[in-house]
């Protein structure tokens, strides 16, 4: 039985629509595993938002490999977040006009111009994050070429998760004005920061890119469940599992769907740098080493412990004696990181 994502479609759509309506200039982001919802679903949803008249005319994808999958389901512009490089694949001519390229190095624009005449381009400005992007002195001559030989769609800047400091954004705006750009594509700016920028730069269009807040903003609309595939009673000292461990106390072994192939048990590093959370991580690591760590599976609202590290498609969980023993076929709720989980089945409830 599969690891399953159940979407309360009405509730989810309501959130997505409300979010789009409250976010002028919104550019939905559909990349990677589509925030657990798949690129296809997000592309359809973006098309729906566009049809609703929310002004959502552009969808951002992560890489060139993701373009085609959304292009057949969404009719607007597709903005590729990964900067164009000489080794980037050619775009299918049928949709080339809908694709907006990100240029993050001055040397790349002339090469793209050789490959595709009059391409749509966004120029990336480097921020304090220092991932991709040009310095202002590289940006301005590049923008002059973009104005002349390409369709210059604006400047993009990426801020870290905390957003930019408003002082930094303002400094960046001098670089933007210097490039004579009229659209700025931004990520991770708070509504307040955006409002202040819009007030001062009414002659500039700000387009916030949003993934998580848009698609996963209403967690209550999403439920992830695994199925109990087997239950075995366990006496103290019994051996079990791939590694032949001995049970330290009596209870039940529960085998449930969902394993490393789905992303279960794989943890992305926490972005948190606080001492307390680091200490917790160390403590968790200690439990991991003893084969005891808290699993994302819950029974009756209580977290279960892994009996051993998850397998590829299923996990073995330890149920202490005295707890209610679930039936085979029963569903367990699972808390997952959506961006790192693939589901066997997505069910749209409405």
């Amino acid at each position, binding site marked *: 039985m599969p690891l399953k994502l159940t979407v309360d479609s009405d509730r989810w759509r309501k959130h997505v629509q409300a979010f789009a309506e409250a976010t002028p200039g919104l550019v939905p982001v559909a990349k990677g595993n589509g925030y657990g919802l798949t690129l296809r679903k997000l592309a359809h949803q973006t098309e729906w938002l566009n049809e609703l008249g929310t002004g959502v005319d552009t969808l951002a994808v992560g890489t060139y490999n993701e373009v085609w999958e959304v292009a057949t389901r969404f009719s607007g512009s597709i903005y590729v977040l990964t900067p164009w490089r000489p080794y980037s694949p050619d775009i299918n001519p049928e949709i080339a006009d809908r694709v907006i390229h990100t240029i993050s190095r001055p040397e790349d624009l002339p090469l793209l111009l050789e490959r595709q005449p009059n391409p749509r381009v966004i120029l990336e400005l480097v921020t304090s994050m220092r991932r991709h992007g040009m*310095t*202002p*002195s590289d940006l*301005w001559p590049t923008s002059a070429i973009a104005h002349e030989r390409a369709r210059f769609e604006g400047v993009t800047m990426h801020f870290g998760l905390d957003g930019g400091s408003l002082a930094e954004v303002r*400094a960046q*705006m*001098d*670089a*933007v*004005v*210097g*490039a*004579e750009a009229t659209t700025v594509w931004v990520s991770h700016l708070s509504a307040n920061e955006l409002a202040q920028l819009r*007030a*001062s*730069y*009414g*002659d500039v269009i700000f387009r916030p890119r949003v993934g998580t807040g848009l698609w996963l903003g209403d967690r209550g609309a999403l439920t992830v469940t695994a199925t109990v595939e087997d239950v075995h009673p366990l006496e103290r000292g019994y051996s079990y599992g791939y590694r032949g461990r001995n049970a330290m106390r009596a209870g039940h072994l529960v085998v449930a769907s969902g394993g490393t192939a789905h992303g279960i048990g794989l943890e992305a590093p926490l972005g948190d740098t606080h001492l307390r959370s680091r200490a917790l991580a160390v403590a968790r690591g200690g439990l991991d080493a003893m084969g005891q760590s808290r699993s994302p599976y819950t029974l009756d609202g209580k977290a279960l412990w892994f009996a051993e590290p998850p397998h590829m498609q299923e996990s073995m969980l330890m149920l202490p004696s005295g707890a209610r023993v679930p039936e085979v076929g029963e569903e367990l709720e699972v808390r997952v990181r959506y961006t790192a989980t693939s589901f066997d089945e997505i069910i749209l409830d409405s």
Partner: protein
Amino acid sequence: MSLTVRPITAAEHLAFIEKQPSVSFLQTPSWARVKTEWRSESVGWFDDLQGGALVGAALVLHRPVPKLERFTLAYLPEGPSIDWSGDLAPWLEPLASYLKKNGAFGIRIGPPVTTATWSAAQVKDGIADDTVQRLGQLTPTHRDAIGARVVSQLRAAGWKLQSPEDGFGAGQPQYNFVIPLAHEDGTPKTEDEVLKGMNQLWRRNIKKSAKMGVEVTVASPTNPANGDFEGDLSAFHDLYVHTAQRDHFTPRQRSYFSTMFWAMSSEDPDRIKLFLARHEGDLVAATILVRVGQHAWYSYGASSTEKRDVRGSNALQWAMIQDAMAAGATTYDLRGITPTLSTDDSHVGLIQFKVGTGGQAVEYAGEWDLPLNKPIYTAFDVYMKRR
């Protein structure tokens, strides 16, 4: 481009300025003779690739700091006059090393580039709108890409913006109010067009002053045909001291104005003019007009408390605008405004007076410092902030 900076004579400097459409009067060699308390020099940029042609110039005022006699802050008010449109490092780096070698612990410049302009109507609406506190909260009618690049480059190169957030600081104002005397395509405006840009009150007051028989005369030390200049200057100064008492500011000495008129007039007889408005023999207002090339500035003003209804100040402004237009000026500059548009701000009346002329609010890049000797610059900065 390979540029060298070295001292130039006042004559070379003046010849360079005369070839430029617009240079601040604070960057003329004669301004050095007005600022007698500071050592000063003219410096030039020479392009070695263009056969050593003089391609830029600046007046540097060396401002000494108490207890640090050996070191000065090199101050280039509203300057230098260089090509601001491209990469600035080739211009500013040789300037910095020249000044450092000559004892400067820091440089202060005021790039004469605008970053944004707002129309008079926008400023007026901004004052009326309670949610708008500052000019920067309003979208400008025009934003200048070159100005933005200057600001961005200065910041990246370690220069520090000195212009205060609000109000007037010690330096030159970052926000000015100007009346364009030419259309965007460069063709001169007619007097009618400039008058039409003014609000009804201004037009009415200009008309009224003429009807009430206000007479405007112009005096300059190099034109004896205009009568007794020293007498006129004394009359101006008396009225100016009166204005200072009424409006609570500290007046400058008569000798300051005398030096200013003689120094600037000897450089160019049309550089500076004293305008006087009299009604039935009584001096009701007096102002000073300065012009360099196509840029004219209203720089000092005085007015009587009596006979305000004859509108001497409006008569003088209009006379100065007409004079500037006749001389081929494209900009009439009413000088600084504060960027605050809040009606609680004490400066808002000044903005409202200037806004009535039509014209536009202009934001400049502001004044920027580059520390050349960090410990001394820091000490200076602390000293200035405590003062």
